[in-house]
């Protein structure tokens, strides 16, 4: 037994989100682990396909929902390609949870704005679920989610559910040209929609995740709305092998994404050297 040996998990369900994005619901084989396993919103794990290797993703489900974990991935490399070939019932590996988490307790009693682009909704979704499962602990909940096109929107069923809830303000948007004739959401880039949604900054937290260019242009909007850098939270990813601070490749300057992250405030991000 060593720290690199994963738990075994079985694929309970697989949901195709888009043409190249899929969500897997995983259950621990060992009932003891299934019972004891706990994590915090924002933490990540090393998922493995035996024979292909390991891959790092955040846990896309919420710690408030016990007994399983979910991950969403885009098919790009060796491991994600192998993951795409797995069927329901197949056994995978999981190591974790690793890394820090969103400061859920601190956020209690505040408003929360979620801003996500593309597959970046996966880590944000974990917090959204967490917040909605403990809805009375938070005030206003606003979600701004954008993708390149309607076909690229992930978690479509959940978007529908969130849209129906009276206690959630949901703004979905697609890039100009990405809309379909029956698209009822917004058309435009995420920063513009955030400005349009204009969530109030007072006693608020923003959780943002998406392509670097989206984050780059959304941050000034949030600042203009009055959000301070220490209340804008994001989650980073970098190539990792061990997930536990030893293999030496996820650091951005002095900061280890696996140990100090993956969750960072915009204030912390601003101090990082330009190496991510």
């Amino acid at each position: 037994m060593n720290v690199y040996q994963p738990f075994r998990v079985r694929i309970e369900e697989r949901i195709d989100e888009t043409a190249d994005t899929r969500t897997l619901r995983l259950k621990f084989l060992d009932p003891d682990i299934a019972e004891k396993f706990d994590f915090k919103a924002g933490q990540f794990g090393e998922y493995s396909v035996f024979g292909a290797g390991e891959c790092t993703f955040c846990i896309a489900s919420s710690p408030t929902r016990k007994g399983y974990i979910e991950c969403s991935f885009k098919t790009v490399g060796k491991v994600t390609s192998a993951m795409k070939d797995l069927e329901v019932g197949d056994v995978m590996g999981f190591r974790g949870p690793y890394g820090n988490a969103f400061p859920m307790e601190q956020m209690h009693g505040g408003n929360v704005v979620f801003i996500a682009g593309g597959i970046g909704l996966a880590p944000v979704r974990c917090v959204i679920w967490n917040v909605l499962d403990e809805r009375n602990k938070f005030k206003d909940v606003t979600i701004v989610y954008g993708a390149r096109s309607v076909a690229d929107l992930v978690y479509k069923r959940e978007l529908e559910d969130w849209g129906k809830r009276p206690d959630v303000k949901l703004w979905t948007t697609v890039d100009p040209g990405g809309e379909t004739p029956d698209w009822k959401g917004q058309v435009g880039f995420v920063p513009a929609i955030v400005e349009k949604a204009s969530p109030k900054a007072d006693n608020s937290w923003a959780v943002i995740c998406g392509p670097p260019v989206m984050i780059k242009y959304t941050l000034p909007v949030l600042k203009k709305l009055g959000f301070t850098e220490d209340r804008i939270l994001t989650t980073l990813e970098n190539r990792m092998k061990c997930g536990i601070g030893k293999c030496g490749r996820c650091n951005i300057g002095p900061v280890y994404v696996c140990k100090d992250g993956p969750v960072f405030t915009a204030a912390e991000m601003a101090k990082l050297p330009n190496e991510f």
Partner: protein
Amino acid sequence: MSTTTFIRTADLKGLVADFNAAGIGVAGPARTSDGAVDYQSITSFDAVVLDAQPRNSLKQFFLPPTEPLFKYARQGQDVAILEVPMSFPPRVLIGARPCDAAAVEVLDRVMNWDYKDEPWFARRDATTIVTFACPGGDRSCFCTAVGLAPDATRGSDLLLAPAGDGYVVEIVTPKGQKLVDAYAKRFATGAGVDATKAYRDTARASVEGHVPARPDVIRAWVETHFEDPFWAEISMRCHGCGGCAASCPTCHCFDIVDEPETLTEGVRRRNWDTCQTSLFTMHASGHNPRHDQCGRCRQRVNHKFAIYPARFNDILCTGCGRCARTCPAGQDVTEILTRIVAMATGQGGAA
């Protein structure tokens, strides 16, 4: 001062014979077929070469270039995990250099950073390090600039220094004491540490002054000069070969890969890796946060002299100089550090 004892050279030979007889593995610096000196398995103390720095370091005895982490076997949809036992036969490393022994202890920090690396510590537990005080080094040695010395005891269980017809033995750790107790007949009373002073002084003199002993200044400069053109300048000659990392006693970065043996079975292995190659940080998408050699050269210096000190209050370098000796393009860490100190203290340094 720790307690000392004494061992005659003849008894040292006998000690290695005792280890052999007891089935304890022995490794030490010995000649290779191509004439170099490597730490390697030995069966006799006669093979030990003490007057040349070994080409490799000790890290391979604790973090092998490749090691299996576990095997897997698929049965239908299920997968069985077969564990590699995390216990290793006892071994004595004899003739270790102080810089190499210290490196092992430096690495204990990261290997135990919140999560214990069992393969590393299982080998650590099984291994006793018998270090010989260094006779002195060449112009690339700079252990005294990173808080060590040719007779530093750090990381060693026993430290031997020559005196008369044998060696004064400093007992550094309980593990060292245990070895001395177990083979008490091989040890005797003899000269004290004082008798080795001249030897130690000569060694120290040979390595001093190659790099200013200002690790704090180096760290401060590296921490505040991420974008300095210095990095681009020194990286021009770098081939990105990673020879420095391979020979380094403290470079410990690794890769984890799955290797299928058959359609249903395979092994997950951990292999040495190096920050000097582009693949090291490349994302599956093709994006590479460390996209050129400039960033990679900076990373190596940064990790050793700024990041590790910030994390563990310890320098990830023991001044052995191997990276300078092995670099095919003449990149020299002593030069880099000396220039950094010069730039930091306002004494120029630009080429």
